[in-house]
């Protein structure tokens, strides 16, 4: 079965082509084609998972693509437990999001195109997950970036949406440049693009530790861009301009996890470079804290979730930086389920309220029971409440951090507290209390079945998906996905209790402030107005980048245009033009007398020769027969003498 895994990304690719070329005019058919394709991929991924579960080895299938002297590019697949898990995550979320989109995007004028983009994205993401070499993963990496751009700017009539698309693309490109340089540095040193061969070379010490650290950090740059880590995190909140299901699929569950996946895939390299893994861990921890603190005060439901995503991705990156291959990817998996759920839930709310502002919502529990219950389940899971998925994966990371370096564990606990707080601030404001906008409240309604059923499935996953990683299981996630050898950490009860207490206190604080109103949010805001302002404006990152990068670039461009373009380049262009005019005058003379003469002369020669030779062609068969027999006689003569 495994050798046929290449079919998994091919189904969505086929669906993309079908929709673009044939069914673009038939929205309903397009969505069916797209969902059918991803369902097939899901089926195949499931078979792959079962196969790999039965025999957890790393298998590689490859063909030579370009075979140049000294340089070989392969096209292939690398299938190990991590790949199998990622395939499942991508296909499940993609399938549910596509089903959900049928309801969410109903009536959109570019419905078919939307599904073709989703198919293309799914293809790229699956290809990325299956890649077995740097070249291939880079191609899919860029394809994923492209589809992300297309989908963020899907409603391109809206200026903020098209701007957000460009911002996402350019920001991630910055990281990708580092990624590319890192790939060059690493692969030229070890002499192969293939992951496993490269790991082998690195482990046998074919590359100096300085170079290894440098290339590892540069490659991590790519992950920083894709996974929206500090300092390239600014694009993800803006990416929320895209359709909400897209945010759920790309900017919560799959694409942003690509950075995490990349670091996990290259664990062999990071494991050998202590400074590089330290950088990874610090960036992760810092981002987790930074983003969580921003999320505390945001008022846009999707932005809260976006910052939450950044923060959780930071969590995973931190775990990977601390060497927690298992913990990081485990959190990736559980996070994909509950964050996709939260986004789709938010989408359901937005669909019904036509607003993103949580202060215009309120009391929605009464109107949208399914959405509310599933959303709260997702929040509980994200906050890390026993025994939901999030609890187990978060606990795994905290345990790892405690064993490696307690500072990271402290950061992790702080982030957990903030996470619980901002999620339940959201829940209490949006779903409880009284309706703040009576008009919108009255028009609110539960979303259609096609949207709520994916919510229920995801809620189920949010509760139970993490159970595969319960630390007391003798055969669980940690004995399936691991790097080199199983790292079994002793479960720590005290840590579990502390983590639960922290999460519960976060929820309680939110309850006290936003449900009971015992502590006035207004007064807190005024008391800490400077901090609030700082957080509300996202630490002024956008303004900072604007001031130190974008504005100077504009100035430089302006200066270059005025002085250099108008002065130097135009002059050069004009001079070149004049020179060309002169040259062409000269060549015209040459053409008329020399070239034409030669051409005509040749013509005369050919015509003359033809006139002479045509006499041979008499049209008399017998003349030709003469020649034939003459030839036969000659041949026989040659043969016998």
């Amino acid at each position, binding site marked *: 079965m495994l050798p046929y895994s290449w079919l998994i990304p091919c189904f969505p690719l086929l669906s993309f082509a079908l929709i673009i070329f044939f069914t673009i005019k038939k929205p309903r058919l397009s969505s069916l084609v797209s969902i059918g394709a991803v369902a097939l991929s899901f089926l195949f991924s499931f078979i792959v998972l079962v196969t790999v579960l039965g025999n957890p080895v790393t298998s590689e299938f490859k063909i030579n693509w370009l075979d140049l002297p000294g340089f070989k590019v392969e096209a292939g697949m690398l299938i190990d437990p991590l790949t199998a898990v990622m395939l499942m995550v991508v296909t499940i979320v993609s399938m549910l999001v596509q089903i959900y989109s049928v309801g969410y995007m109903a009536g959109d004028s570019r419905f078919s195109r939307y599904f073709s983009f989703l198919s293309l994205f799914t293809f790229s993401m699956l290809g990325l997950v299956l890649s077995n070499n740097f070249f291939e993963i880079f191609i899919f990496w860029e394809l994923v970036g492209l589809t992300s751009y297309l989908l963020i700017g899907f409603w391109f009539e809206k200026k903020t949406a098209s701007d957000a698309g460009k911002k996402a693309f350019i920001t991630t490109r910055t990281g990708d440049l580092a990624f590319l340089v890192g790939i060059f540095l690493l692969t030229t040193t070890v002499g192969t693009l293939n992951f496993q061969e490269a790991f082998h070379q690195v482990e046998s010490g074919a590359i100096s530790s300085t170079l290894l650290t440098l290339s590892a950090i540069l490659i991590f740059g790519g992950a920083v861009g894709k996974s929206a880590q500090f300092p390239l995190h600014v694009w993800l909140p803006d990416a929320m301009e895209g359709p909400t299901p897209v945010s759920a699929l790309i900017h919560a569950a799959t694409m942003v996890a690509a950075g995490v996946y990349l670091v996990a895939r290259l664990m062999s390299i990071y494991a050998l470079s202590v400074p590089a893994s330290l950088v990874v861990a610090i960036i992760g921890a810092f981002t987790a804290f930074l983003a969580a603190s921003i999320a505390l005060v945001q008022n846009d439901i999707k932005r809260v979730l976006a910052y939450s995503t950044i923060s959780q991705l930071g969590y995973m990156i931190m775990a990977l930086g601390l060497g927690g291959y298992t913990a990081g990817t485990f959190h990736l998996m559980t996070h994909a389920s509950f964050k996709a759920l939260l986004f789709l839930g938010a989408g359901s709310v937005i669909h019904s309220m036509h607003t993103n502002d949580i202060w215009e919502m309120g009391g929605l529990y009464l109107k949208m029971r399914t959405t509310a219950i599933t959303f709260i389940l997702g929040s509980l899971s994200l906050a890390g409440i026993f025994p939901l998925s999030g609890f187990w994966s978060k606990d795994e990371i905290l345990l790892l951090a405690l064993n490696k370096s307690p500072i990271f564990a402290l950061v992790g606990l702080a982030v957990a507290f903030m996470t619980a707080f901002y999620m339940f601030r959201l829940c209490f404001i949006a779903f409880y209390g009284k309706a703040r906008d009576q008009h919108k409240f009255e028009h609110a309604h539960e979303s259609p079945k096609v949207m709520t059923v994916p919510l229920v499935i995801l809620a189920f996953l949010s509760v139970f998906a993490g159970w595969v990683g319960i630390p007391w299981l003798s055969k669980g996630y940690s004995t399936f996905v691991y790097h080199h050898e199983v790292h079994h950490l002793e479960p720590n009860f005290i840590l579990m209790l502390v983590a639960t207490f922290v999460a519960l206190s976060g929820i309680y604080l939110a309850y006290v402030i936003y449900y009971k109103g015992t502590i006035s949010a207004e007064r807190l805001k005024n008391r800490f107005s400077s901090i609030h302002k700082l957080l509300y404006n996202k630490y002024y990152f956008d303004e900072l980048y604007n001031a130190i990068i974008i504005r100077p670039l504009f100035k430089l461009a302006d200066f270059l245009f005025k002085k250099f373009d108008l002065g130097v380049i135009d002059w050069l262009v004009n001079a070149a033009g004049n020179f060309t005019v002169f040259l062409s005058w000269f060549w015209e003379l040459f053409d008329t007398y020399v070239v034409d003469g030669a051409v005509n002369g040749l013509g005369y020669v050919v015509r003359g020769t033809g006139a002479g030779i045509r006499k041979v062609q008499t049209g008399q068969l017998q*003349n030709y027969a*003469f020649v034939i027999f*003459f030839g*036969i006689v000659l041949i*026989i*003569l040659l043969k*016998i003498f």
Partner: protein
Amino acid sequence: MENGTQTAVFYILSGLIVGSAFMVVSLKNIFHSALFLVLCFFSVAGIYILLSAEFVAAVQVLIYVGAITVLLIFAIMLTAQLYSPSIRQSNEQVIPGIIIVGTLLIVTLSVLRRTSWRISTQGIEGQSTVSIGKSLLTTYVLPFEVVSLVLIAALIGAIIIARRE
């Protein structure tokens, strides 16, 4: 027949063949050419008998002398008035023709001279007619049928081609 007689007959027949063939290709009157062609065909039939191929000789007389020559004479009479000037025909390119044909003859004869043939000393047993009949309906039945088809096709083709619209 005696060896001596055989040799004499061979030379007489050969002389007749070569002579009449030469007449066929050189006479001005095409009707006379056709008559010499008949003589040539008869002599070839004689050669076949000398080679103990009686059946082939009979076929030669029937088809060539009986059918083809008659066909040719019909064609001559259809295309020209006998004793009219147009029945005259001429040869052209005679000198180059002689040169090429002469070279070919010399070359062929010298090749024949050089080649050593695997001559069998066995004689012919029984009637060749019987064995030809048998092999035509057993071993060569497929070519036999194919040839009959070719004949039909030629027949129909000739009619179609020569038909007046």
